């Protein structure tokens, strides 16, 4: 792991263990290099260097305030007006963290689902279709088809197929969150970022959501922030452990949970702090 000099001075004593994914079948789709995030003068993320494997689920874990959500939101530049992000975010050979990038186009490739379900105050159908219409898909049949496949992929189709014109605000929390996933995948992204998507859901909805994600990784590369250790263990291939704005350990999920190399990681995953 390469550390720039000024960082090294501060982190000499810091115990870290970073193993980037190296799986020929799942090449790197997104990587960050020398990423720093500042809120005003306060540094929230210092030097996060991670590579994310395609068509896999990567979990970001760590105590509250460790910077995992900030890190995730930087990946599709949702922090643009809130924080200053320096460093490179490489996506298909292009640094998407530079001003010349069309950030709106980029976000269609790197979709995001948030902590609290946020369906729009529109019908279920329009929640999915209206962003497509804005980008020129106006053919009714084509829209119908995308709405149907997205809802099916998000495992919501069977419950709502007769109510597509009803308000999305009437859906339950779990359904609303799956609608948000359907909405995100309808614009055909490569990467799906999820920020604690199950934290507002009951256990049944959570487990349905996890099944959905396991299905989705065939077509999408997924990065998920979670507070739930079991969840990370159940669904992810790789896990990054964040603490105080740094990635302290990154490895396959099984290594992180069964044989963590860093003491703090070990304490955290075994529930001794955080």
């Amino acid at each position: 792991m390469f550390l720039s000099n000024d960082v090294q001075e501060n982190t000499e004593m810091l115990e870290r263990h970073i193993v980037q994914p190296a799986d020929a079948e799942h090449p790197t789709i997104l990587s960050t290099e020398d990423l720093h995030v500042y809120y005003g003068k306060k540094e929230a993320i210092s030097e996060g260097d991670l590579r994310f494997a395609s068509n896999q689920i990567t979990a970001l874990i760590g105590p509250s305030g460790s910077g995992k959500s900030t890190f995730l939101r930087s990946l599709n530049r949702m922090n643009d007006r809130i924080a200053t992000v320096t460093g490179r975010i490489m996506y298909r050979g292009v640094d998407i963290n530079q001003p010349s990038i069309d950030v709106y186009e980029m976000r269609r490739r790197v979709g995001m689902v948030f902590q609290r379900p946020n369906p729009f105050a529109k019908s279920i159908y329009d929640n999915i279709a209206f962003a497509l219409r804005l980008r020129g898909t106006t053919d009714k049949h084509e829209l119908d088809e995308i709405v149907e496949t997205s809802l099916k992929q998000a495992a919501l189709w069977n419950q709502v197929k007769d109510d597509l014109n009803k308000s999305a605000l009437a859906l339950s929390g779990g359904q609303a969150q799956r609608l948000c996933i359907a909405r995100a995948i309808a614009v055909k992204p490569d990467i799906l970022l999820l920020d604690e998507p199950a934290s507002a859901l009951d256990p049944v909805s959570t487990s349905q959501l996890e099944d959905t994600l396991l299905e989705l990784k065939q077509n999408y590369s997924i990065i998920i922030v979670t507070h739930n250790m079991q969840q990370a263990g159940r669904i992810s291939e790789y896990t990054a452990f964040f603490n105080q704005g740094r990635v302290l350990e990154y490895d396959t999920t099984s290594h992180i949970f069964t044989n963590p190399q860093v003491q703090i990681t070990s304490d955290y995953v075994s529930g001794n702090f955080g």
Partner: protein
Amino acid sequence: MMNPKTQNKVAIGTLYGVAGLVVLILLALLGYILVSGLPQLSWHFLTAPAKAFLKGGGVGVQLYNSFYLLILAMLISFPIALGAAIYLYEYAKDNWVTTTIRTAIEILSSLPSVVVGLFGFLFFVVKLRLGFSILSGAFALTFFNLPLLTRSIEDSLRTIDTTQREGGLALGLSRWETVTRVILPAAVPSILTGVILSAGRVFGEAAALIYTAGQSAPALDFTDWNPFNISSPLNPMRPAETLAVHIWKINSEGIMPDAKAISSGSSAVLVLAILLFNFAARYLGKRLYKRLTSA
């Protein structure tokens, strides 16, 4: 020392008393206006022109003027207020510029309407030579209305959760698309309510109009809709006494024998119109919300 339970009872009792008093005063006022005014109302009263010296005049022209002025004032002030509110809430960063704008809006909204009227007189009537006219009145009402409408639209935007904006942006929508396609549709019912309520205030405004739209109501020819003719109802350059100004004028210098009755009747019409605005605001707001949110 009272125990908490008695204390609570005393507090609730006091609050009920205070609330009851407020309701009582309002009902008494409303009741007085309606009881003394409703008997004066008739089709003739609502449609006939006013008479200066004789009995039996109506308020037809004034009522029409009130609505015409209201519509003009709203047409001018709504787009400006909407733009300002969108800028302030959706785009502007919190810095000294926006703080200054907000402070200015706050000061303007507490400006006495007679001051707005005198400003309108000096600026629109005299300086811009618009004379006592509907247009001068509409501009004065715009100044009167703008701060409150901007505030109310900004508040409507504020009620839409931030997560909605993030949802739009995360789908690759631009900020403008997010505002126009996600935020505004969701806020329309609440914006509409604000617009109608402010319409009620504008409708009942007198002081800002006395020196701008004037105190005379020339007879109108309701068959002539050419806005360039002086007797056309659409002509924006004619002086136009509104209902509220009429009430003020009759009470201060009315010399017709039935001045008191006309004033009572006009007041009742005014109150009824404003009540109508309020109920319409609630009804339309709810209807529209249902329409917009469930296709």
